[in-house]
């Protein structure tokens, strides 16, 4: 199936109808997206500041990662459910929105990085763990910035 027809189908699917139906649907889902945002990027920022040596230095990074992990995953899960729901409400427009495309590229890189090198950095020590913390902050900042710009492009 060619890509555009998939997005056209999605924007007329039952999910899109539900999102575009009652007036409160989109705001409620978007609010949940923001709660997930506080959980995920909030706890990732704590972890990154620890990797940079700016916070909770007495607690080993490995231990902190274990403490925060479930909240990060909960937040990411909530975002990855509510995000596609919002996307489906106006799939073709989002698909063509440069800010949205930028966000998706950054999100893909940020997620790949988070579950590979970033995770490894929380389990080890050395100068590159600082670099991993800084890079993670930068990647997630790009995701947020891209998301914020969607409404303005």
């Amino acid at each position, binding site marked *: 199936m060619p890509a555009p027809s998939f997005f056209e189908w999605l924007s007329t699917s039952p999910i899109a109808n539900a999102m575009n139906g009652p007036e409160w649907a989109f705001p409620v889902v978007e609010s949940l997206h923001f709660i997930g945002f*506080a959980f995920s990027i909030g706890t990732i920022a*704590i972890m990154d500041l620890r990797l940079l040596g700016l916070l909770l230095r007495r607690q080993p990074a490995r231990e902190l990662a274990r403490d925060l992990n479930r909240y990060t995953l909960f937040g990411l899960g909530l975002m990855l459910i509510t995000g596609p729901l919002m996307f489906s409400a106006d799939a073709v427009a989002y698909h063509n929105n440069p800010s949205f495309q930028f966000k998706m590229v950054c999100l893909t890189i940020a997620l790949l990085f988070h579950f590979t090198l970033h995770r490894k950095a929380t389990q080890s020590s050395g100068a590159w763990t600082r670099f991993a913390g800084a890079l993670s902050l930068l990647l997630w900042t790009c995701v947020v910035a891209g998301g914020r710009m969607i409404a303005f492009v």
Partner: protein
Amino acid sequence: MTVHAALEWIESTGLSTAIREGALPYPIIGGVHLLAIALFGGMLLMTDFRLLGWAMHRRPVSEIVRQFQGWKRFGFLMVVVSGLLLAWAEPQKLYRSPAFWIKMALFALVGVHALVFRSRVYANTGALDSGITAEARVAAALSLILWAGLIVSGRLIAFDA
């Protein structure tokens, strides 16, 4: 000066016009507002979860609260300053928005929360290391509810106008 005249005056200032009409300032300040929410909100979440006994049990309450304090203040300051700039850009729209007034009411309750609980919970964490009091749990639960409400009502402002 009536409220409407005051709001009109705010919108006529150079700063207000620049944020409202420029292509970049509004989304950039909005982005800073969001990033500050992540910084402040994430730490608030973990502080209150620690007080509820749900997270980070491996370290004492006093250490968690002390370590997060500086960053939380920095995040809070960024949220407030960026929020004021956003409000300065379109005060008339906000004045008409029910969600904005709900948000401000919740913000006032955050102040009340601080007056009630600050000295006995958040500034008294040494005593909580030996056992978390019921009062501290109530403070944490209310704090989470208030800030969740602030996030949701803040987001809903966009749908009022």
